[in-house]
């Protein structure tokens, strides 16, 4: 009998990061109704930010997360003004295709700038033991940081006037405009925030992939984020975080299961199961796990 508790703990911790990575996607979709198919490339950007801050200046990911948020916000503003706003009139097909091309462009630029090789780093600050089960302290702190960011977003949404403006735009963009909300500005800031959350997730992700940073790393995370976002209801940020925890468990518990069943590549099988879950959700419950 395999002891599943370490896999469970790991799933919870890594799930917190998956949740944070997905929140950015759900946030942008919830407000702009735009699916960011370039999502994975912004995760990749965050991972490289963490890598360079650690290798060049020895800043750990818990510090470079602020750089991730700042650079991500700038990238989000640029994304909104260069791609999303000009194409809003042209239609959804054009936005999707442009974003997809942008994601590919970012990966190729990263390859030219930073090389095609897989890089990585390990930030080791010891581990703690929870009744005999060892947890890496750096990963635990990363998971807590992700939770704090997710909660901070809720505070912004429900306790500030900007959050109220955002919620008004979500309910009715025209009505929001009539009562004097600058809808364009809400869209721009929301895109910036969504991308910032995504790159921050990419920064924290590096704690879990000691050798896994490369220009094309984003694609599996795009799929993962889509699965989680649909599970969480696609427009709900807290739903996305909770679904991230659940998905972390699926991946983490699926690994020993598929290995015990004798599959050649158990991790790939868990990812395939993720896609099956996506199709099942689309079939039976497109509104996600939680009604909002």
């Amino acid at each position: 009998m395999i002891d599943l508790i370490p896999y469970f703990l790991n799933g919870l911790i890594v799930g917190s990061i998956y949740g944070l990575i997905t929140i950015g996607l759900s946030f942008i979709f919830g407000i702009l109704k735009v699916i960011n198919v370039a999502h994975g490339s912004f995760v990749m950007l965050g991972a490289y930010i963490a890598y360079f801050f650690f290798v060049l200046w020895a800043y750990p990911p818990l510090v470079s997360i602020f750089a991730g948020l700042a650079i991500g916000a700038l990238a989000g503003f640029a994304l909104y003004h260069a791609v999303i706003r000009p194409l809003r009139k042209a239609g959804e097909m054009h936005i999707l295709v442009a974003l997809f091309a942008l994601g590919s462009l970012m990966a190729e630029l990263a390859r030219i700038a930073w090389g095609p090789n897989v890089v990585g780093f390990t930030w080791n600050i010891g581990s703690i033991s929870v009744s005999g089960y060892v947890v890496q302290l750096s990963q635990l702190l990363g998971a807590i940081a992700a939770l704090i960011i997710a909660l901070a977003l809720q505070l912004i949404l429900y306790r500030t006037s900007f959050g109220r403006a955002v919620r008004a735009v979500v309910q009715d963009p025209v009505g929001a405009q009539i009562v004097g909300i600058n809808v364009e500005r809400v869209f721009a800031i929301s895109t910036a925030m969504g991308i910032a959350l995504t790159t921050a997730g990419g920064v924290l992700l590096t704690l879990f992939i000691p050798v896994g940073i490369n220009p094309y790393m984003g694609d599996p995370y795009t799929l993962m984020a889509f699965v989680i976002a649909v599970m969480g209801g696609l427009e709900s940020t807290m739903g996305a975080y909770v679904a991230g925890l659940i998905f972390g468990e699926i991946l983490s518990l699926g690994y020993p299961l598929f290995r015990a069943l004798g599959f050649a590549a158990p991790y790939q099988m868990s990812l395939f199961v993720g896609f099956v879950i996506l199709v099942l959700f689309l079939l039976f419950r497109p509104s996600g796990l939680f009604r909002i």
Partner: protein
Amino acid sequence: MKPHVPIAIYLSLVALSLAKPELSQTVATVAFYMALGQAVNIFVGLTGYVNFGYAAFIAMGAYGLGVVIAYFPQLGTWTLPVGLLLGVALAGGLALAVGAVALRLRSAYFAIATIGINEALKDLIVGAGIWGGSSGLVLGYNMFQEYGRDFALFLSTTGSTVLILATGLMAVAATYLLQSREIGYALAAIRQDEDAAKVMGINPAKYKLIAFVLSSAFSALLGSAAFPLAATQVFPDTVFKVDYILDGLAVMFLGGAGTVTGAVIGGLLYVPIRLLLGQFLPAYQALVTPLLVLAVVLAAPRGIIGELRARVSPKIREWIP
């Protein structure tokens, strides 16, 4: 509407590849992108929905033929038609299954589902180790056994080129027929306003599904021609390449989404553009396709044929559908 121009271009390419077998490789490359753009156009161009899963359908075609050649050598020469049919059936079945689930929902959900098909199927093949798993299928020996040396060599050169051209030609005919029949009006209505189309008594899911399955089947034929037939091997990393999706979109948008002639012109231009820029800036060749797509979508969303059609007299417009 007269589809004479695209058909004439395809037929002259067929004649060229038969008359000059040494050019077969070049013709095949150009024709592959022309036909891929046309296949993408049948669904994306005509419905306005985006399918990010084309590589998966190309892979289904590649595996369909590859599996029959690898595992059923007793069929001899029959492996070719059986394999092609299996590839089309796999891709069509996959499109039917995914489309039936996701085409009922908002287009955002459909895009999400299709972007997953690619990764998920690759994960399944590698993860479960089916059809050769991560080590793929190497078919050269089997093809010599099944087809005889000379016919196998003919198939992997001129044969695959002609199959690609025939696929493109069929896709042109399908685009033309789809556009000029009742379904074309239904698709145009769906593209402009799906809710209004529903009110008019059109069943959007049905028409979108027809276009989706057709478009996937053509992609599968291209996969069969390019991988098992021409390259005599099928590896998960090469057949599930995301690049093909962007290539297909680039060809379609360059020529003009939703037109019959667009993908033909787009394909004829796309390959030389990539080659030329690759010659002068070899390190930056990979940037060409995404930059091209971005530039066309942002600056000329109607593409070359779309812009032309908007400018010329109705008499000439007849000739560039």
